[in-house]
């Protein structure tokens, strides 16, 4: 999968390495800024600090 993606990036080797790094950074940012905050509504291992009432 990853080998296939890397082989199919355009440009010479140094450019492909750069492209791969940018791709990784973009995916991590996407996860941190949108995916995980959204996911947090459904799984929150230790974020419920309130007491005695059902938090909406």
């Amino acid at each position: 999968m990853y080998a296939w993606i890397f082989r199919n990036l355009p440009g010479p080797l140094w450019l492909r390495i750069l492209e791969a790094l940018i791709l990784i950074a973009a995916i991590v940012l996407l996860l941190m800024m949108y995916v995980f905050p959204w996911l947090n509504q459904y799984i929150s291992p230790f974020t419920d600090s309130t007491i005695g009432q059902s938090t909406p």
Partner: protein
Amino acid sequence: MNRTATAQGRRMQRRQPSAGNRIAGFFGELLITLGILLMLYVVWELWWTNIDSAQAQKEVTANLVQELGDVKVPEINEEEEEEKDYGPAPVTELVPGETFGIMYFPRFGANGSHHPVTYGVEDHVIDNLGIGHYPTTQQPGELGNFAVAAHRQTHGQVFWDIDKLQDGDKIYLQTAEGYYTYTWYATEIVAPSNGDVLLPTPHQWGVEPTKSILTMTTCHPKYSTQQRMIAYSELTDWRPLDAGPPQEIRDMVIDATS
């Protein structure tokens, strides 16, 4: 020439793995990806949420500071100033959805900390805005229980040091009405379902409150939601905004509001 030929030969070999190899390779990569995703989630929860929360808290604090106006630090004899009694504390009327105050904790962190206090304890409040006030409990200055919640860890970890409170420690609340001084007197650990701690007189149903207290609730132990740690403080002093911040938090207030 020779080198290229060898490299090509090797690539040819690599390009024709058996079907079993390819499937195993694919699942291997899938598992590695899952592992990395889980690790990233932990990084997000433990580290990134603190940064997000700090940013959001900074924004609402800045907005509130504008509403409160400049901090006045009068140039009078300090000791005299400290002893002055400004009478009973007025009630800060709370409006749903609004950030109404800043709490100062000289005990927390290396040099104390401060966090905004907002109406409500929904996730969007305490995940992003620091401290949330239970709307079913009393308002600051009212007789009874002014109860708030904040995270122990992640999302700003506002009450991380709550177990460090000791005799004589003060917690200050700055609102449009002035500076409320609360003095810590007890901490207990209860089950998450124990809503009695939010009663006007904690744990006592139907008992008319005789004093104003501040109740802080958070997670316990650290990195878990198994129990709740509850810290109680009593309203011991109040001064108007015009009188300037109490001596202990003077620098913190100037720092927070500048």
